[in-house]
């Protein structure tokens, strides 16, 4: 046995040295290579997972916002339609009112004008009546030459004028 150990060159000191070498190597690799790289990989995996979750959340929120926006738009459209409708009605009503007013005014003016004309006519007729009365009076005076008393004479004239007016 010791012959074999000697032939193989087994030396406890070397054996221990190699074992210590390996343990030191293991410790150093763990500290500087495996540990940091594994930590980094784990962190990256977590980051990616979180990122994916966030992206999903954002997409969902975006969808909600989009829906809300669409609903809002729909509401505003309806409101605008109502407002336009009301404005149209108001404008129409106002227009009709204006037209009515104008028509009334015109009618008023026409009536006024008619009334004026009537007055003018009556005045003229009066004047004409007076003039005719005087004329008739004068003619009658001339014709009758004071043969009738004055009051009867006037009565005649008036009667004549009245008849004329008719």
């Amino acid at each position: 046995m010791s012959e074999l150990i000697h032939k193989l060159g087994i030396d406890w000191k070397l054996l221990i040295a190699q074992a210590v070498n390996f343990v030191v190597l293991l410790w150093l690799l763990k500290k500087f290579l495996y540990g940091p790289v594994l930590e980094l990989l784990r962190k990256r995996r977590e980051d990616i997972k979180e990122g994916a979750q966030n992206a999903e959340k954002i997409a969902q929120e975006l969808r909600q916002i989009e829906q809300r926006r669409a609903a809002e738009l729909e509401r505003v459209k309806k409101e605008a339609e109502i407002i336009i409708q009301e404005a149209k009605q108001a404008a129409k009503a106002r227009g009709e009112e204006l037209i009515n007013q104008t028509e009334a005014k015109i009618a008023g003016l026409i009536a006024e004008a008619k009334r004026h004309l009537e007055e003018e006519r009556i005045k003229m007729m009066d004047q004409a009546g007076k003039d005719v009365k005087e004329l008739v009076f004068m003619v009658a005076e001339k014709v009758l030459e004071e043969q009738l008393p004055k009051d009867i004479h006037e009565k005649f004239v008036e009667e004549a004028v009245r008849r004329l007016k008719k």
Partner: protein
Amino acid sequence: MHISLAAEHIFSIGVFSVTNTLLMAWLAMGVLIAFALVVHRVLKPLPESGVQNFAEAVVDGAVSFIESAVGSRKDAERFFPVVATIFFFVLVSNWMGIFPGVGSIGFHEATEHGEVFAPLFRSANSDVNMTLALAIVAVATTHIMGVAAIGFFKHAGKFINFSNPILFFVGLLELVGEVAKMVSFSFRLFGNIFAGEILLTVIAFLVPYIAPLPFLGLELFVGFMQALVFAMLTLVFLTIATAEHH
């Protein structure tokens, strides 16, 4: 041509004798530590360097591979450091053993057998001290993790069990099995790499040009396979040791 099973003595630090295989182990460690430090320095949340991409790919690939073997990411990350370190250390030292100059640069040394050639560098795993040390660390780790996972008494109960005679003898066999594990671990790796070294030396001695090329390729493959086998067996033993029943 002189072939020695034992690693050659190169120099001494005090009473401590440094062999060429220990030197190579230090070099392999140096390469891995340098890589780890470079990665540690360039590590950013968003990778900016090829080194980081490479390190991430290697680490994540290894953890995923272990995960596919043990089933859970938690266990995979627990076993990963020791399994990966075994794999990378064995792989790097095996491949460094194929470098030109390893086994050929050296000096002549006077010994009791006369003057012999002692190479300055020799593949770290062509020394039983190295492979046995790895095997002991690997098996010790399985026991430490076993105790940590299921408790000392439960774990020890797998080996020393007086509840009935059958379990008692099974426990004894398990104890023998633990020693056999170490021996098979160490001699498998040692045998493969040592044989590869000798194969390359012999081929290079017979036909120095062209002919060694296929064998170099073969040794690259063997170096990778042995690293993988050592690491995977360690993983299997770790899984068994941390399980309640076996």
